[in-house]
């Protein structure tokens, strides 16, 4: 049985690779961009779900970590000439203007920086609970944004960075997404993961069972921040341009929507809903544009798409509290249970 499942997993991964290969060969750049975004949102959604869904810390600071990752990656990969063009107001700080590392290393360093920032924020802020934590992390994210707006010689301030090398392609995004899924998946199923879930269910009970609240909360927060930074770096190199306004609370809201819809505390739920939300965002673009039905021209209302999304979030929270998957996971066992209900006497397997 175990071998069979491993085989199925390997087959699934192969199918995914073939799918990516096929997409890389056949789809146009617009569709590729959407697929890339889907994968990036999987990374971002999972990193937020680790903090909010699995450990039960209501953190709203994700945009800040993403900004750290995106700026680090961008600064470390941009060629000198482009840096010179960008920093025409104030020249760039000395060692940074000629610094380069390969894309992978830049992503990693971006993630590590975000993780360090996450640790520095988490260590004091995680003493707070519930809504106080939410507002404090929101505040930290806002502070990061304001600082980035003002560090003219490092981040180019409000002008943002343009011409970031578009190094991330579908192999990078899906590869990183897969690594994230595997890493967070095994983390959740380890003793750390069980401690995270225990903290989510009841802090006091968890503490009295000997789980160090502080250590585990900071750990979840730091790992979440790391992956948020990596996701931010990918996003920056996909977009090609970043500026501080991109990293407003609205970005955190988007990721929150993904984890709510997918189910707080479900990895597969997050993956599914990252795809649904990202593709949905594009598919609903027609709402913002004018439509022609026969002779009738309905003028587009810009912003209607966002109304639909906010309403969707409200509906999910009000009526489908558990999202698509709740805290369940899509596993081979569940799939067998659903489709292969052979009675035990005929050689079926016990669950």
């Amino acid at each position, binding site marked *: 049985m175990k071998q069979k499942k491993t085989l199925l997993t390997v087959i699934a991964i192969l199918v995914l690779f073939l799918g990516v290969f096929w997409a890389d060969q056949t789809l146009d750049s617009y569709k590729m961009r959407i697929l890339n975004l889907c994968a990036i949102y999987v990374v971002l959604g999972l990193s937020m779900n680790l903090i909010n869904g699995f450990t039960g810390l209501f953190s709203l600071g994700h945009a800040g970590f993403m900004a750290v990752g995106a700026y680090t990656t961008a600064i470390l990969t941009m060629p000198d000439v482009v840096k010179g063009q960008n920093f025409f107001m104030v020249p760039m700080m000395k060692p940074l203007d000629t610094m380069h590392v390969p894309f992978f290393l830049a992503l990693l360093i971006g993630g590590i920086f975000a993780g360090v920032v996450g640790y520095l924020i988490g260590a004091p802020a995680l003493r707070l609970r519930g*809504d106080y934590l939410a*507002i404090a992390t929101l505040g930290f994210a806002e502070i990061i944004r304001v600082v980035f707006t003002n560090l003219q010689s490092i981040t180019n301030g409000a002008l943002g960075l343009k011409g970031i090398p578009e190094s991330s392609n579908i192999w990078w995004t899906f590869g990183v997404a897969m690594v994230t899924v595997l890493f967070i998946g095994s983390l959740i199923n380890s003793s750390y993961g069980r401690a995270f879930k225990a903290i989510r269910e009841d802090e006091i009970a968890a503490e009295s069972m000997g789980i160090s609240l502080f250590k585990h909360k900071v750990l979840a927060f730091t790992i979440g921040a790391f992956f948020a930074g990596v996701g931010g770096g990918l996003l920056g190199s996909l977009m090609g341009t970043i500026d501080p306004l991109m990293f407003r609370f609205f970005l955190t809201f988007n990721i929150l929507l993904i984890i709510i819809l997918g189910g707080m505390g479900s990895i597969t739920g997050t993956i599914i809903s990252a795809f649904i939300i990202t593709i949905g965002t594009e598919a609903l673009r027609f709402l913002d544009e004018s439509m022609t039905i026969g002779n009738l021209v309905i003028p587009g209302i810009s912003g209607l798409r*966002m109304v639909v*999304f906010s309403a969707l979030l409200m509906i999910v*929270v009000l009526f489908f509290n558990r999202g698509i998957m709740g805290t369940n996971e899509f596993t081979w066992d569940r799939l067998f249970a659903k489709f292969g209900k052979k009675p035990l006497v005929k050689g079926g397997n016990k669950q």
Partner: protein
Amino acid sequence: MMDISTFFQHLTNGISLGSLYALVAIGYTMVYGTLRLINFAHGDVFMMTTYFAFYGVATFMLPWYVSFILAIILTAALGMLLEIGAYRPLRDAPKISIMISAIGASFLLENLAVVLFGGRPKAFPTVNLLMDSIQLGSVSIQKLTFVIPVVTILFLVGLLYLINHTKTGMAMRAVAKDYETAGIMGVNVNKTISQTFAIGSMLAAVGGIMWGLKFPQIAPLMGVMPGLKAFIAAVIGGIGNIKGAVIGGFILGIGEIMIVAFLPSLSGYRDAFAFIFLIVILLFKPTGITGEKIAEKV
């Protein structure tokens, strides 16, 4: 160094900004006191008021005072609607769900405003009566700068009377203490919570109108920053405590203006000050300057 008249000018500006924060902060603190919920949409309720007032004057050609009163009433209704639609169904749900619902409601209002009113900023109607300046020695100060704190204090006195000396206020205090027990004792909990939202939204509406007069440019996202800062003011003052919210509002308003006035090189960081202040307060005195320690119940 700054001379005394410039200092005085900054101080009056700080006081009037602080009064606006205070008015909005009262709404946060009242809702938090009753439902233990950060009403993220409060800043957007504040934004909606300015549009109600704008359309009253610009489209329906109402005199400003009629339009302003109508806007206040509409905002109170909006606040009640918000509670019934977004918070009441989740009253016994986990706290995190209610908060997400609040964030959702906030984004819904912002995006609805973009769709209904357009994303481009509009000019808030001016009231000539309040716009002229008065000469005080060498300083000239707009009348509005004095009107704002006076109006705030009037509403505050009215609110404190309502809370402490009327039956409705007693019901509100009872619901804030423990709404289940209050319900058992015969308080109509739903009605009282609705009233709390209505009053909080009315005060935000008064703040919104005066904000519009002071900074006459209104846009769908204008409520976000004042909303967050007013919330910070409420936390500084000790959330759940009305007088604390007012004190917090003044501290934040005056502090913000003064820091920018004395250290102009840091003016780019203006919006960060409030958050840094919030985090410092949360870490060292989480219940705010007036709050007492709350024992944790297991």
